[in-house]
């Protein structure tokens, strides 16, 4: 059975924990909490190479960290001293992180364009688009599946099915119940996996990306996960009132927490001792504390500065 290496698994744990702590400390930074679904972005992002392209969902911090941005970079990017700088959602051209479109679900087509670009230039780069199940109802999703198969593009669609799009349960808007089934209509290889097992996400993503890189065409991977928090920071009642199975549904899924499960795996395989874990956790908290300082920096721009970068020269 293929597994991730010790280094990889420990790194995945560490990154998921960083996001968890960071979001807990500054929930307003990117007010769409990733609580409970950190494994998808981290596992998916880590499967990519540095020069691969990544578009993510609006719950984007796990993916950015997975792709290789540091917490400090994420935290400082909106201020003048950031490196790289971004306005809004994190972007890093040196890591191929294209960001996410403000119009949900439209950037499946942008991922197609990036993959097509890589294919035309013959560089071996691939593109990955991470999106929530709700966004797969946009027309661009269907057309992107269709045309990436016809054009045989090196693109991987990683769907985070956290079961709720804002307040709406996925069963009310997805006829096939599984998003992966939608791939069949377009002859796209598709699978459904446990999105709360970061190793499974990582291995599935790696297999898909290598297949794509070798010219094997696009792949659709649906990661079953769950959004423990509300859609948005300000959700009434912490986002518990619309759960199909009542608030206790959240508690059921808390037991499947991806960070806890990753830790259990690492301990079970004897990769780390409990004490070594505490070292890691100390280090993570320290890194988060350092990053927090950067979130205090001013992100406001002078009227003159705000006019810059509308057009490229």
């Amino acid at each position, binding site marked *: 059975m293929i597994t991730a290496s010790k280094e990889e698994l420990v790194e995945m744990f560490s990154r998921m924990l960083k996001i968890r702590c960071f979001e807990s400390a500054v929930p307003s930074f990117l007010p769409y909490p990733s609580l409970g679904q950190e494994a998808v972005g981290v596992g998916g992002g880590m499967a990519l190479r540095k020069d691969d*392209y990544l578009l993510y969902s609006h719950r984007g911090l796990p993916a950015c960290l997975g792709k290789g941005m540091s917490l400090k970079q994420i935290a400082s990017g909106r201020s003048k001293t950031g490196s*790289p*700088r*971004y*306005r*809004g*959602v994190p*972007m*890093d*051209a040196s890591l191929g992180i*294209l*960001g996410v*479109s*403000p*119009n949900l679900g*439209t*950037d*499946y*087509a*942008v*991922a*197609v*364009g*990036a*993959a*097509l*670009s*890589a294919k*035309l*230039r013959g560089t071996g780069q691939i*593109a990955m688009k991470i999106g929530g199940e709700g966004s797969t109802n946009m*027309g*661009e999703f269907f*057309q*992107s599946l*269709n*045309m990436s198969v016809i054009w045989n593009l090196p693109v991987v669609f990683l769907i985070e099915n956290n079961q709720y799009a804002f307040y709406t349960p996925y069963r009310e808007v997805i006829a096939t119940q599984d998003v992966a089934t939608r791939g069949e209509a377009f002859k796209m290889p598709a699978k459904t996996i446990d999105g709360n097992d970061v190793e499974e996400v990582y291995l599935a993503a790696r297999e898909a990306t290598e297949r794509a890189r070798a010219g094997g065409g696009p792949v659709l991977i649906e990661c079953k996960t769950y959004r423990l928090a509300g859609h948005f920071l300000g959700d009434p009642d912490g986002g518990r009132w619309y759960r199909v199975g009542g608030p206790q549904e959240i508690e059921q899924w808390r037991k499947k927490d991806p960070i806890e499960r990753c830790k259990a795996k690492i301990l079970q395989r004897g990769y780390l001792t409990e004490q070594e874990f505490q070292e890691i956790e100390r280090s993570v908290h320290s890194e988060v504390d350092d990053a927090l300082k950067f979130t205090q920096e001013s992100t406001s721009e002078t009227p003159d500065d705000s006019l*810059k*970068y*509308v*057009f*490229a*020269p």
Partner: protein
Amino acid sequence: MTRIATYREAINEAIREEMNRDKTVVLLGEDVGRRGAFDVTAGLSEEFGRQRVFDTPINEPFILGTSIGLALTGMRPVAEIMFQDFAYVAVHMIDQAGYWRYDSVGQFQVPMVIRIPQGCVPGHTEAVEASFMRFPGVKIAIPSTPSDAKGLLKTAIRENNPVLFFEHRRLYNQEGEIPDKEYTTPFGVAAIRRTGKDATVVATSDMVNVALQAAGKLAEEGISVEVLDLRTLIPLDEEAILESVRKTGRLVTVEEGHLTGGTGAEIASRVVKRAFQYLRAPIERVASLDIPSVEDMVRPDVNKLVATVRSQISS
């Protein structure tokens, strides 16, 4: 020095020259690899191959989204929207194209051209360029002659920003002189197509022809009209408009799109702000009526423009 070519040929030439000059330029859209709906891209897929000239499904958001992805990652796509109103199907993509550089604080650029043929016919009754003046980060070129069609399109393809390039179907067969040598036409520089002193008429695309014909008729009545061809709406050559208005004291804008929220509305606002004291009469806007019809009585024509200028002069 120059030779005669049609507007259609000029566009085809521009694309061919730029595709030869820069291997990252690709052409995509519905049927573009198979001559195109109006024969504009004929011969290009044969010359450059199906890797660089390729057909897409009927899905404008997909065409433009793919173009954004290509442009963000080192390619220079020239996409086509077959009929102008189809651009409305993908407004959010045009909006996004203008956003990416800004939000990445210059990390990314989006060098893409969207060619959009216009011309009111049944089923496609609107001229849409005015709608897109509102998208920051997106430029607009709108040629009225073969020479400008070629020059502006070459500039558009070399631009490192998204550019909407509005062609006009009624102009495709129009002939004009094109320089033999390599040239581009700059953005933001209006052309004075006819000098005059009694009124300034500002127009783009096929309305420039309407304006010139109207100016000819008015000259017979002793009225001297200056005709300005804007060539690009973003950037807009405001100075050229102001300079002309300061001379004539009267402004008439003419456009094929609807009156409300049209290019004339934007230009009039700016001129009132910056040249109020030079105006001898209220600014007039000649445009299509605000109704979804393509009947001739809806659209601007020579007679309507003549009547408007005449009435403005005598007011």
